[in-house]
């Protein structure tokens, strides 16, 4: 069965997944994280580190260009606040547009994650396997 590059047809009744419309995984993760509450860059890094028991990024600092990109696209908004230690830090929170984008992306990502894990556990020649 030939599969076109941008859509993956799977047996189960799901709408097609438009890979082209997906954000980068990092962006998605940032939006997800920030949706749980305002956080500064370091806090996001720590949270990702804790929750996933893994180093997601080769360079931790690449978080920051992503944050600023998202801020430019107005999906998150940055504001400067004082931490408990009375240090000046930039906290990010989700904007309304960001919430909408997150919701739209969330479903697609979930689908993709499921499909990926299915494909990963499938044996060659046995596409019909559940």
């Amino acid at each position: 069965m030939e599969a076109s590059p941008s859509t993956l047809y799977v047996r189960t009744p799901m709408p097609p997944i438009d890979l082209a419309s997906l954000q980068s995984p990092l962006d998605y993760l940032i939006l997800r994280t920030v949706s749980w509450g305002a956080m500064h860059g370091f806090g996001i890094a720590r949270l990702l580190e804790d929750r996933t028991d893994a180093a997601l990024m080769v360079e931790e600092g690449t978080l920051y260009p992503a944050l600023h990109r998202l801020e430019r696209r107005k999906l998150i908004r940055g504001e400067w606040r004082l931490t408990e230690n009375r240090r000046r830090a930039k906290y990010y929170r989700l904007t309304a547009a960001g919430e909408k984008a997150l919701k739209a992306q969330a479903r697609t990502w979930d689908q993709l994650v499921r499909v990926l894990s299915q494909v990963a556990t499938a044996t060659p020649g046995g596409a019909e396997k559940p």
Partner: protein
Amino acid sequence: MEEMPRWRRYLRLWGPDPGADVEDELTFHIEERARLNVERGLPPERARAEAEKRFGDMSRIRTECIMESEHTTRRARIGERLGDVARDIRIGVRSLARAPVYTVTAAAALALGIGANTAVFTVLSAVLLRPLPYGGADRVVVVHNTWEGSDEARVSPAEYIDYTDGVRAFSALGVYAMSNVNLVHDGSAERVSAAFATPSTFAALGVAPEAGRLFTDGGGDTESIVLSHEYWQSRFGGAGDIIGRGLLVNGVTRTVSGILPPGVRLPANFGDVNPPAMFLPLAIDRASDPVRGSHFLLAVARLAPGWSAETADAELKRVAREMTMVHTDDYPEAMRFTAFVRPVHADVVGNTRPLLLILAAAVALVLLIACANVSSLVLTRAEDRRRELAVRSALGGSRWRITRQLLIEHLMLALVAGAAGVVIAALGVRAVELLQPGDIPRLADARIDSRVLMFTLAISLFATLLVALAPLRFGMTALGALRESGTRSTATHASNRVRRALITAEVALSIILLAGAGLLLRSFANLMTVEPGYRTEQVLTVPVSLPASSYPDDAARRLFFSQLVSDASRIPGVLAAGAVSNLPLATTVGDLDIELEGQPVAEGDVSPRLDWQIVTPGWFDAMGVDIVRGRGITTIDDERATGAVVLSQSAARQYWGDADPVGQRFRLGANAGPGWVTVVGVVRDVRHGTLTDAPPPIMYLPHAQFTFWHGGSAASAMTLVLHTAGAPLPMLDPLRELVRRMDASVPLGNGQTMEQVVSTAIAEPRFATSVLAAFALLALVLAGIGIYGLVGYTVARQAREIAIRMALGAEPAALVRQIIVHAMKPVIAGVAIGTASALVLTRTMHSMLYGVAPHDPETFALIIVLLSTAAVVASLVPARRAAAVAPLTALRQE
């Protein structure tokens, strides 16, 4: 890790600094990670190093973040700015609405000032700035001859040939002359203004037809007509089939060959109320020995590539000089004949430039005075708003923010005033068109176009800045001074100084305007008392011209006019009738060489000359020109009698001194008939060209005897003049009826009373005088309002002191006197400055003044008294009102 330069932190004063913020953010991360590492047991240096290593390529990451961040802050900043401006506008509107009296007064004053300036600029733009409707108008020049006694003279046909052949600087040279022609169309005859022009005229002007074609060169084209666009529209309704239509002009059928584009006129016609409606070809035939001594053509030329006006002028003079050396009979040495070139734009508008510039200056002064008044108003308002400004400042409004909001408020006021000003300007331009003297060239083209609107915007902004200047400075100091307590602060002292300075300025500017207006008024009054030498009331003038086809010979023309004059004098209500070739004040006179009996003209000398007029019997009587010696022209002087001539006093004095010239003989030059003439009488001098020019020396020749030079014929176009018992215009109908009965194909021209003719002649000085007087009056009123306001304000602030003084027994009269004296101090300063400036500036007006010097002491004394009186009166009212208030009431109000 690189350190960000410390100085960058200070950039934050100007707003968010993306670079510094990113630096802080990234540094925070690394420091937090380092701390965490230390908590986990790493030694500090290694903690830091590990954090940095984990972080990654700092400079790359930093650069990326800064790029993104700058984008964001830029957008945010713009949005914020726009939001600020929108908010300022909202605040401004509310603020203005809360003080309607101030808003309306200030807007009205500014609107008047801006409107008047815009109106004048509209006229200026059309007359002086807009390019003439010619192709490459900067390459078009006008050619004038000049000689002893004639600054600007016309060109003769022979000279046209010589200039065309000899002057290499001209790529085209055209000549033209104005005339009136009889047009018969659809059965009705009418007199139409026309111009005869050589085909090269249109080439020189660079004019292409809107439809059809212009005259063809080569002289073969004798029967084409080119119509002006305006005449085509008004007379033929813009008919599409006009090309090729036949028209009967002066008894000859001609064909319409083309239409000119709208607005195109010959250079000499731009000031005409009645410009040529049609253009007929003028053919100057080299072969037929064209006339040299008769200068009646206007000339226009186009500069050939590589020639400038200066080099062309030199070339023209060279050709003229060679010409005079070849034809020494026609150009005696003493005549000092030469020619010159003038760029066409200067030629068309040059005369009105002084008038228009003076108007522009006057109206600018009015605007400045209005701005001074409004500035005062704004200052008062600023003082009243001290509290509001204090609150805003305390709530965190920066100086700049508050200033910006005030500026926007003023700007809105000025823009509203500007819009209202445009409306006022439109009305003003209409008023100018109605009142116009008639010879401001191109006035008809005046419209409010984009250039005018740009100008309006510019002076609205300028007015804003001017008006806001003083109060804003006050506002700055006020904001600082608010920290002081009490009602008296340095700020109010400053405001007082500013106010008094404003009054001084207003008074000075008003003096300048009043001086100009006063001088013009005086000059105009002098003009009105000029004795023209003839009757101006109860005189009707009507041009009559005989079509050459029906009246080909002298006998027919002479018969017609003698019968017309005698029949016209018999119309009931007509006391006397006569006809003249050139009506005074409405036309110019030309001159003609004469040769006195027994005084032949020596080689190289200038021949004696006199200006000439042709008159019928009865004209002196009808015009009311007194005969001082001998007799006038009568029916005796016909073709069978000896040639008779009547001289004006200055003509007699010029060649015969105080001796009685009656009986003396001289010969008319240029073969004009009847040749030898005998002086039969002397009449009083008359003003001819303008009321201010000296009366020319004139010889009056009888219509029944005169024939034009070089074997020409009797005059076919004369102006009939009737002295009526009652109002002149009702006599037009019986006259028309009379002429119709005599010959229905002879049209009458435009009938005017002599009063109308005089009125047209003085129209320009009257226009300039009335406009300037209106501006001066406006300035006086504005200055008076300003003084009234200042005194009122001062008195209100000092109400307490006044009350105390009155309670202590001061005389109200003395108090009033003191207030007025104090108020007059800035006025006196203004009068001094204004008078000094006016004395310098009025010198530019000397060309417009008649019989009065630009520094005329009487006028200056009068306006100083006038303005001082007005100032005292303006101060009196509030001063008396203050003194009239009972002291206790005043004290209680404090």
